[in-house]
């Protein structure tokens, strides 16, 4: 039966996405670990190289999913899984781009003349990195577990990261002087990249809710994690 072949191919694609998601989580962690460090040129190059490998995986997953759509014309749950795979695939590739941006920001900070420019790195930034990585990890777990409750819970955390981003912006403005504007802007930009990662994790969570429940929850304001998933 062709659906057995379909199931096998779909499982292959899910596995590939799962592997790619591990790569991305690692990449994000490595990129942020470079912030505030010195002599990081080689490490930044490694991150760029790893991102190119992720781009190739993204293309391969997309091609596999499109092939399944074209050959099997899936419906209902199968269709929702494939559409979700395509969207998560795209979101993960963008997380990879943000990881590269963070590494580049770390490089620019490293390039500053620290005798002239003191650039504070407030604790908000590390907290944003921790939260956004955790959100991403949890959203991907929700996808693997096909668990809408977990996905809704990820969505609910996005506001925390947004609040930290606002706080980071205010702190950096306070510390800006005529000498360290460039460095402070780099910190803000790193924060913006982390905030986008949290947004993408939220998107993934919303896509998982669609996959599991067939409900579109995007653009509907703050979620109520307690009610949403069980509400059939």
């Amino acid at each position, binding site marked *: 039966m062709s659906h057995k072949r379909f199931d096998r191919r779909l499982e292959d694609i899910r596995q590939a996405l799962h592997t790619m998601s591990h790569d991305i989580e690692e990449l994000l962690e490595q990129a942020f670990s470079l912030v505030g460090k010195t002599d990081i040129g080689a490490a930044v190059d490694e991150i760029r190289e790893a991102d190119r490998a992720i781009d190739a995986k993204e293309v391969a997953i997309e091609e596999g999913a499109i092939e399944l759509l074209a050959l099997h014309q899936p419906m*209902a749950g199968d*269709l929702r899984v494939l559409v979700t795979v395509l969207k998560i695939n795209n979101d993960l590739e963008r997380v990879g781009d943000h990881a590269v941006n963070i590494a580049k920001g770390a490089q620019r900070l490293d390039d500053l003349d620290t005798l002239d420019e003191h650039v504070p790195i407030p604790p908000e930034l590390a907290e944003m990195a921790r939260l956004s990585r955790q959100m991403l990890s949890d959203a991907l777990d929700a996808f693997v577990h096909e668990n809408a409750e977990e996905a809704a819970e990820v969505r609910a955390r996005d506001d925390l990261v947004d609040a930290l981003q606002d706080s980071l912006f205010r702190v950096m403005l306070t510390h800006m002087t005529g000498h360290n504007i460039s460095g402070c802007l780099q910190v803000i930009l790193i924060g913006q990249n982390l905030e986008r990662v949290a947004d993408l994790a939220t998107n993934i969570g919303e896509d998982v809710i669609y996959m599991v429940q067939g409900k579109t929850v995007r653009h509907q304001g703050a979620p109520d994690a307690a009610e949403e998933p069980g509400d059939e």
Partner: protein
Amino acid sequence: MSTEIEEAGAVRTRVALKTRSLSVHYGDSPAVRDITLEVPTNRIVAFIGPSGCGKSTLLRCFNRMNDLIPAARVDGEVLFHGRDLYAPDVDPVEVRRKVGMVFQKPNPFPKSIFENVAFGLRINGFKDDIGERVEQSLRAAALWEEVKNRLDAGALSLSGGQQQRLCIARALAVEPEILLMDEPASALDPTATSRIEDLIRDLKRDYTIVIVTHNMQQAARVSDETAFLYLGELIEFNETERLFTNPDNERTEAYITGRFG
């Protein structure tokens, strides 16, 4: 005119035809079991399900085509304008004039294109301008431009897709309210199928259409509501978009994802 029913809130849906506890037996074998559903006016309703699920039998109840099968027994009601089509005083010929049917294989008569469309008008005693009605019907069936210069040619000289559109024109000529289609494109190539599907969507403006199809993509493409039948039972009747993306019933999900049936 169709029956009007009040739905939840202020939305009004007109119902072209409804069944109440409809069952059909062929001898002792049940083919359709206790089906209650409403076909909304000017909508396209698709019946899907595996072979032998009762979808064609159900369709044939809507214009009493099952009367032609001696062993068939129909219980329950098929209500059209509030009257049961199976009431003793209802004339099945009149029913079939109001509820037309198009079959799986195009079945034009071995006559001219014109006569194929005019035939139903003549036997119904149509007295007005037959030529004008034939043209209207051929236009409505999206065939006029292809045949207007050869109306006297034999219908069997047309391609399969054109023959099927001719059969649709023939059905439309007697001005039915409902058009039943039993696998209308299954014998046609993809291009002809696409034209029939476009035509079905166009006809929705003026007619209520019920279509039986094995092709789930076709049901998804053309219909507004879809009914999934299995072993003679109505398992799910839902908006087509919902049924094919997020069905309410697990058996529907299993069938449309190819996991049973």
